[in-house]
């Protein structure tokens, strides 16, 4: 069913999840973070901004999506018609898998679509394409804030710095950084160094966790399938930051579910 959250929201936030480099785990984080926000009671829609390499809907196990962001960018329908219910209040605007019509996409329509979604959501999360091509720039510049996802190694950092520079030039605020796939090697870039270079807090530091890959292959988000995993603990950290503005200590394995259930209850009060 194509739906859209039906409430006005002046405090809605549009956040791009970007990295510059591919393979940082950006889509996993965008999807799971969106699910965590929705599960905590926030009206959330995640948008697949990677129109050439669609993955958000696939990761969420969306079986059928005849209308996608592609149709919206060709002016064939509204973004509401391309929005699908997932679970726990999360909605998704998927990208299409076909390459046939990509040349006809009008990326100027992306921002209009996001503005429409903003009116009826607490959070609009945009999973940005890697790189700095038209699709990536359209997604990035349609947001008000960006959270950078990077791996703690130099090539990822280099690309993240470029994304940061472009974001700032386009008036998109860098709200935080998520480091992903930490292996605990001494050669990895430390969080303090990242904070110094990027000028903002590392809001979650996620270790390398095979559960994230298992979840991806099973098309069930780790947040749902592996609630006690390190990956989900990191997602919970990031979610807490987005909701409260505070960077919390890493939640330990085993209590994430308890904390999350408490948060869900609290937000319903």
């Amino acid at each position, binding site marked *: 069913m194509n739906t859209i959250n039906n409430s006005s929201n002046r405090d809605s936030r549009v956040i791009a999840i970007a990295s510059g480099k591919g393979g940082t785990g950006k889509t996993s984080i965008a999807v799971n973070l969106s699910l965590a926000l929705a599960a905590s009671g926030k009206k959330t829609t995640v948008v697949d901004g990677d129109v050439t390499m669609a993955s958000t809907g696939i990761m969420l196990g969306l079986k059928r999506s005849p209308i996608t962001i592609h149709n919206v960018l060709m002016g064939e329908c509204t973004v509401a018609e391309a929005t699908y219910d997932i679970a726990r209040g999360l909605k998704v605007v998927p990208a299409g898998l076909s390459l046939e019509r990509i040349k006809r996409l009008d990326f100027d329509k992306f921002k209009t679509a996001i503005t429409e979604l903003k009116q009826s959501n607490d959070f609009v999360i945009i999973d940005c394409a890697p790189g700095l091509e038209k699709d990536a720039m359209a997604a990035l510049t349609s947001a008000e804030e960006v959270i950078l996802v990077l791996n703690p190694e*130099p090539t990822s*950092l*280099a690309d993240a*710095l*470029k994304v*940061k*520079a472009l974001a700032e030039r386009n008036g998109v605020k860098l709200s935080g950084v998520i480091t992903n796939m930490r292996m605990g090697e*001494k050669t990895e*870039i*430390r*969080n*303090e*160094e990242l*904070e*110094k*270079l990027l000028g903002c*807090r*590392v809001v979650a*530091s996620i270790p390398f966790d095979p559960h994230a890959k298992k979840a991806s292959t099973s098309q069930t988000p780790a947040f749902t399938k592996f609630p006690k995993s390190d990956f989900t603990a990191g997602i919970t950290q990031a979610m*807490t930051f987005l*909701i*409260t503005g*505070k*960077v*919390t*200590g*890493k*939640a*330990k394995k085993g*209590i994430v579910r*308890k*904390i999350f*259930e*408490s*948060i869900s209850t*609290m*937000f319903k009060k």
Partner: protein
Amino acid sequence: MFPSGQLVKSEELKQKPLEVVNSLKEKTFTGYVSFTVKNENGIHDFTVALIKGETVGAFHESFKTKQLTHGDEALVKTTGYENAAGFYDVVQLSEEQVQLALAVRPESEVKQREKHSDAKENKPREGNKESNNGKEETVVASSEEILNKYGLSSLAETQ
């Protein structure tokens, strides 16, 4: 407000609530103590959260007046009730659980933190320190030095 933790004690109040809180401070306790007391002004419910013996959060509710106070103001109220009858529960939580609960209800956070003067300080962690709430000191090189370290000095213009 708080997630379920480990109930350490649940008993009749035979001393001042402030003495209960102070004893938890001495023990560098982490969790919360919740009081339900009755005095001439009616029934009152109040809770004090601690992390390693430091009071970090509080809220107070008066059932008669339906007044709800948070933070430092609530903490001050808990110093009364010298002759009140009632009960209290002490529940142990992890530091992260207390922090998370306060992060969700920031109005309950106590700004003027107090800990027992004899409370032992934790030894600072050694080695590479991950980013946390800023209580540990870490020497960080300048941006230029960090870029040079990772062979990214040509990106200095993006800074």
